[in-house]
């Protein structure tokens, strides 16, 4: 697949996304600047498209970084407890820092997510038996433990339905004024591109990386920080979007190999295309209502992941 094909696909899908929804908007309506349609277009449709683009690109890149740092194709924010740590961070800050400002709460969530991911990387270091299947297994279990704590707290405070409805990934509630936090993922993606080669080297192990003159700790921590920034901003604004960081980088690596410099643009655009397709499908299937995007992503994503597991075992090793 060529990059320009992906870009054309994403442009077409973006255009469709702008004009699909509960209210029928035609391009000709936009000529009248004062009309309701134009207002809706500017307040809801454009921010929604921007949010999808940033979340899709961000989550895919986050997965790619984690996969090259751990040198395991099946490590991603979904399979390493990162998203569960972000969820737990949010509920903790809701319960215990009610008086803190919004910014303080965001910073708390971010630090919590970072620590959650670091803990998993520590566990990974201790494992001698680094089978491609075994590592995500531990990661998923680790995520389960974190979400058991989240459920426990939600049950005690009686806000379980709040959490489950509001943390499920959905772009329905994205309007201008509620998604701007996502912009922090743009510098994160740029940094990821600049450091791409170093992530690959760091993935080869601490000794090897140091031999090549790389400050291993710094690169590792930078990578995990970028992952935490992207994950926190996405979970806080649109909720949990599973599997995106897992499957998109894997599909790209199937046809393009593992040179990060080359694969980052593809991964980014393919992530956007995938998320756009899922979101548009969610808006069309039960029009004028909407299926939250994390359902379509989880259903399509888990099916793709299962196929990868059944057929691609030789490739994963």
């Amino acid at each position, binding site marked *: 697949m060529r990059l320009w094909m992906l870009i054309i696909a994403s442009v077409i899908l973006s255009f469709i996304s702008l004009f699909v929804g509960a209210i029928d908007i035609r391009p000709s309506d936009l000529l009248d600047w004062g009309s309701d349609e134009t207002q809706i277009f500017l307040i809801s449709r454009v921010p929604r498209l921007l949010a999808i683009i940033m979340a899709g690109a961000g989550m895919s890149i986050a997965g790619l970084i984690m996969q090259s740092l751990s040198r395991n194709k099946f490590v991603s924010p979904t399979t390493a407890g990162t998203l569960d740590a972000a969820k737990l961070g949010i509920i903790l800050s809701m319960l215990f820092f009610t008086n803190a400002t919004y910014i303080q709460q965001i910073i708390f969530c971010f630090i919590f997510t970072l620590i959650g991911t670091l803990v998993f990387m520590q566990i990974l270091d*201790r494992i001698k038996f680094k089978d491609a299947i075994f590592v995500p297994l531990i990661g998923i279990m680790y995520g389960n433990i974190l979400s058991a704590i989240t459920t426990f707290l939600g049950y005690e405070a009686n806000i379980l339905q709040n959490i489950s409805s509001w943390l499920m990934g959905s772009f329905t509630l994205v309007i201008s004024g509620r998604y701007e936090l996502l912009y922090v993922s743009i510098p994160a993606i740029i940094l990821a591109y600049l450091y791409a080669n170093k992530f690959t080297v760091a993935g080869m192990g601490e000794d090897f990386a140091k031999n090549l003159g790389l400050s291993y700790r710094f690169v590792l921590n930078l990578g995990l920080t970028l992952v935490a920034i992207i994950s926190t901003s996405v979970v806080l604004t649109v909720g949990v979007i599973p599997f995106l960081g897992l499957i998109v980088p894997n599909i790209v690596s199937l046809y393009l190999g593992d040179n990060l410099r080359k694969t980052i643009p593809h991964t980014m655009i393919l992530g956007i295309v995938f998320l756009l397709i899922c979101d548009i499908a969610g808006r069309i299937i039960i029009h004028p209502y909407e299926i939250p995007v994390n359902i379509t992503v989880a259903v399509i994503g888990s099916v793709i992941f299962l196929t990868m597991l059944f057929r691609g075992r030789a490739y994963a090793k």
Partner: protein
Amino acid sequence: MRSNQTKIIFLAVLAIICMLLYGFYDIKGGFDYAFPRRVIKIAAMVVTGIAISYSTVVFQTITHNRILTPSVMGMDSMYEVVQTLIYFFAGSMSIWVVNRYLNFGAAIIAMVLFALILYRFLFRTNKYPIYLLLLIGMILGTLLGSFVTFLQVLIDPVEYLSLQTRLFASFTNVKAELLYIAMGILLIAFIYGFQIMSKLDVMSLGRENAINLGINYDRMVMNILILSSVLIATSTALVGPITFLGLIVANLSYQYLATYKHSTLILGASLISVIALVGGQFLAEHIFELRTTISVIINFVGGIYFIYLLLKESRSAG
């Protein structure tokens, strides 16, 4: 080293102490009112504990491993799917919810079907290594789980509360008549179980050896699979899903009793799960005064134990 008989007696005494503590501790507002209610709860916990341990041990024997359990392979999610679908399409006032027998029957049939499909496509082919099966089970769980979440968000909040009490294992809303059916199923399972205990011991030697020794292996596997899913379905329908209980108690029992005799293993695992459930519920309810159901705590402890087991197994494998 103590003999297994002493160990079983020790566990039984511990289980009885837990039951007495739970039954009589701090009874207020009329003995006649509170005591029968507590007895029902204890009975429910005992039935659940035995059903889960029994099904887990036999399931692990036919799949030749100590990590996979019916719950971990997604049976719990299947239960949630059935219940949520019923609430979603029929509503909490429909006959499928109000009539406990119907509700119970629907859940059991769906779960048995699910287990048969799992076995046919995953275990019988013998093609997939165990960690892969585990990962597949978990991803299936995610798939079913996200489907459930989607329906739950659409459900009216009042109906959701009613659904929530069904989906989180809770011994406070056990219905007596449902308990009697569960006891009946357990009794039938045990009568059947007595005949197959020694066959199970032979089957743990592996497929080829067992067939050599005159076991109709494939038919036995089918029977045990149905038995195991009926038991899990029973306990899940009775008190809701408790994913990791079977895993913890089966492994503790292998470790503590160090035997291959299924009669001893199942007895030991059942006693351990009674201790865990009744003792755990006692601590949560009376000592820590939590509102949380015991399942959340067991899933938390069980998750940690599971990682420990995986790491231990991987060391011996790698």
